[in-house]
Every structure is written in structure tokens, then in C-alpha cells.
């Protein structure tokens, strides 16, 4: 089994942001023009030029003190990716054997369906190129036996990369070790993701982290029910036509004067 996964253990993250820069360096992403908005966090969110970032949050510790949370945010690389379902271009969004979900910029038409259907709103639209982009899980590195740039550079093992089974086991044992409100996030929804978290706080505390991520029912309805149904009805229609042809023979054009009269 070649399936890999990334485990982000927020309890070990020091917010040094080596990952943010290593990502830009490996993927040759330009810097963004930013301002200080009263926080260490920058850029403010993901963008076509920022595939990953640390989200900084201050929360009350309930004892008069503060907790400073650092969460490495990036694409989850779902087993059952909404983006891929929504993408109208065949082969534009594909999955690698290791589990990465990748957008092929050559094929992308910039329709942004992937952005709207992603439960985390990860894919970003680049107005310059009119394409979508996001984290690739460094699939070029992974395919060559390297680990993703962010995991490689992380000083404390807050970003781990390895066989998915191992990562899941590690996640659960770590969450248990941490105790309290610590939990594993990512292994149980969307078919299981290939970027998972050990969170120290309940998921709802973290910015941009839905407690119960799911692909919109509209998309599921479209992709899982209506689209197969429509394909079935299309095939059914063609079949019916064929049957009609066999039974009735070709339909001759009939010209009806009255129809063309234009009354």
C-alpha cells in the first residue's frame, strides 16, 4: 500500500513558519504584499501564492491567562474530494497513488467550482493566470521518495509525513497522551483525508476549521444521484431511440405546410 498522509500535531507547532517559506521556496511561489493587521498571521489567508500558512489565534485559557494556538492550514487531500467531483474538466483534478489531490494547471479552466464545493474553501483563483491552485502535497517530491517541503523543514515534528496507517495510529496515540480536549481530526470524514490533525482544543475553536466538514448536499445530489441518473437517462434515451429504430425504422422528415405558415 502506497497511501501516504500528513499529520499536523498542533501541540508541537511553535509557529516558526519554516513550513510557510519552505513551501514557497519549493513551489517557486512569489511573496504577497502584506500589511500588519494587528497579528503575527500573514498572509491573512490562503491564496494562489500561499498554499499553506500558520493561523495564529489567541484564546482564553480559563485561568486568567492565554493560549496561543498555531495551526498549519492547507489542503486536506480528501479521499473523497469535493473539488474533484465538482470539476467539469475530466482529469483536471486528479488523485495520485499516494493520496494527493492535485489540480493540473494545464487543464484548469478557472471555473472555481472546486472552491465552492470544497468544505474548507481551499482552492484559490489566480486572476493573473485565470487558474485555480492549491497545495499539491509536494507530489513531485513524494513521487521521488522525498517528503513534502513543509514536513521536511518542520523543526519539532509538528508536521509528519508517512504511511497513512502509521499516521493514524500516531495521531490517536498522541491525542490520548495529550488527554483533555485533544482529538484527531481528519480521518473520519470525506472518506478520510490525507492531511490530518492532532488538535489540542475542540475543532470549533480553530479558525477556518469546520466541525463537521461535508460536501454540499447539492453537489452530492448532482454528482451522486442526478449526474448518474442523467447519464443513465441519456443512455436510456439512446437505447430507446435505438429500439425505436429497430422497431419502427428511420423516421422520415415530414413537412407540414401548416407548421411553417407562421400564423
Amino acid at each position, binding site marked *: 500500500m502506497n497511501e501516504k498522509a500528513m499529520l499536523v500535531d498542533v501541540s508541537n507547532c511553535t509557529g516558526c513558519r519554516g513550513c510557510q*517559506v*519552505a513551501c514557497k*521556496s*519549493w513551489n517557486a511561489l512569489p511573496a504577497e504584499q502584506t500589511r500588519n493587521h494587528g497579528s503575527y498571521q500573514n498572509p491573512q489567508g490562503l491564496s494562489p501564492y500561499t498554499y499553506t500558512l500558520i493561523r495564529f489565534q489567541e484564546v482564553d485559557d480559563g485561568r486568567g491567562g492565554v493560549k496561543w494556538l498555531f495551526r498549519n492550514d492547507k489542503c486536506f487531500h480528501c479521499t473523497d474530494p469535493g473539488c474533484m467531483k465538482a470539476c467539469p474538466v475530466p482529469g483536471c483534478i486528479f488523485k495520485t497513488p499516494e493520496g494527493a489531490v492535485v489540480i493540473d494547471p494545464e487543464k484548469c479552466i478557472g471555473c472555481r467550482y472546486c472552491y465552492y464545493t470544497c468544505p474548507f474553501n481551499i482552492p484559490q483563483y489566480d486572476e493573473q493566470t485565470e487558474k485555480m491552485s492549491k497545495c499539491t502535497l509536494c507530489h513531485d517530491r513524494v513521487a*521521488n521518495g*522525498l517528503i513534502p*517541503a513543509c514536513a521536511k*523543514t*518542520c523543526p519539532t515534528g509538528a508536521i509528519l509525513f*508517512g504511511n497513512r496507517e502509521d499516521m493514524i495510529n500516531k495521531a490517536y496515540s498522541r491525542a490520548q497522551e495529550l488527554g483533555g480536549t485533544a482529538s484527531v481530526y481528519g480521518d473520519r470524514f470525506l472518506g478520510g483525508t490525507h492531511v490530518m490533525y492532532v488538535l489540542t482544543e475542540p475543532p470549533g475553536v480553530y479558525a477556518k476549521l469546520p466541525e463537521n466538514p461535508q460536501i454540499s448536499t447539492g453537489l452530492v445530489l448532482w454528482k451522486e444521484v442526478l449526474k448518474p441518473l442523467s447519464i443513465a437517462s441519456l443512455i436510456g434515451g439512446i437505447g430507446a431511440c435505438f429500439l425505436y429504430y429497430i422497431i419502427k425504422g428511420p423516421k422520415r422528415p415530414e413537412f407540414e405546410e401548416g407548421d411553417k405558415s407562421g400564423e
Partner: protein
Amino acid sequence: MKVSRRSFLKISGAAITAGGLSLSLEQEKACAKTTKICFAKETVTICPYCAVGCGIIVQTRHGRVVNTEGDPDHPVNQGSLCSKGSSLYQITHHNKNRLTRPLYRAPGSSRWEEKSWDWVMDKIANNIKKTRDATFMERNILGQIVNRTEGIASVGSAAMDNEECYVYQKLLRSLGLVYIEHQARI
């Protein structure tokens, strides 16, 4: 999962420039075209920022830097780097703001002029001699031999290599400077 040195080299298929290196570093065939470090030359260096002293690999092709990342063999950082270490690529020749020519600003001028090395070095050496000779004290007010100048001062630099620090202080002290300070003081 940890990338071992061997597998790292296998990917880059690189020759490493490290004197006295005990590893066998023959080129290996396996190299995917998709990675930009394929067949790049690897040179090990130490990060120029804080004093943790992390190992960094600089990958070059035809003398141009194609990538930099942590040295997985280095016992201290084991391949990891912080944000500054990770951005080493941006202080290489790729950074268009690097100073590349000696610059000169004349007294009262409001602009820089580009000058040749010979021109600036001659002028600086003459300035040093002029100031040194004008301010040199063979004896202090107590009549003790001091052989020093208080007319010239130097600060820097912890950014230089050991060998450069030594020869710099050697030159400064031969000139009689006593105002020699650097980052360690502040």
C-alpha cells in the same frame, strides 16, 4: 518518515562538494524529471542567521542556485529549518537587491556613484593612512608607549567567517586601532 541522506542523494543524483567526506557519492541513475533538483550539484553550508548552526544544502546547476533546503545529515537540525533558514534561496544571486558594485558617495552629495574596486580601495587605503598618521599616538599623556590611534574605529562582524574575523582584527590592530567592537557587545 525521515529521508535519509542516501535517499536524498538518490533523488538529486548529485555530487556533493565536501572536503574529507567519507561518503561515496557516485551519481545514481534514478532521477525523476519532475524534481528541479535532478542532477543538481550539492554544496553543504551552515545557515547564516542564528547560532544554532543548522546545515543547509545549496543545489546549483551551471553555477545558478536551483534550490536550498535543510541538510538531513546534520545532527543538530536533521534537515529542518525555520522560516529564515528556509528562505536562503532569496539572498542568492536571485535577489536583485544584492549589492554588486562598489558605491561611492562624495561629501555633500545626494547620490551614489558606481566605482571600480581599484578606485575605491586606493581611496580607502589613502584615507586610512591619512587619518592614522594624523591621529597616531606613540605615547599617552602619562608618557607611556601606547602606539595607537583613536581616530579610526571599527564595528563588525559576527557575519564573517572565523578566518576573516582573525585577519580583520590582525590588520586593525597592526594599524593601532583600539576602537574595535562588534555585535557581541550589543
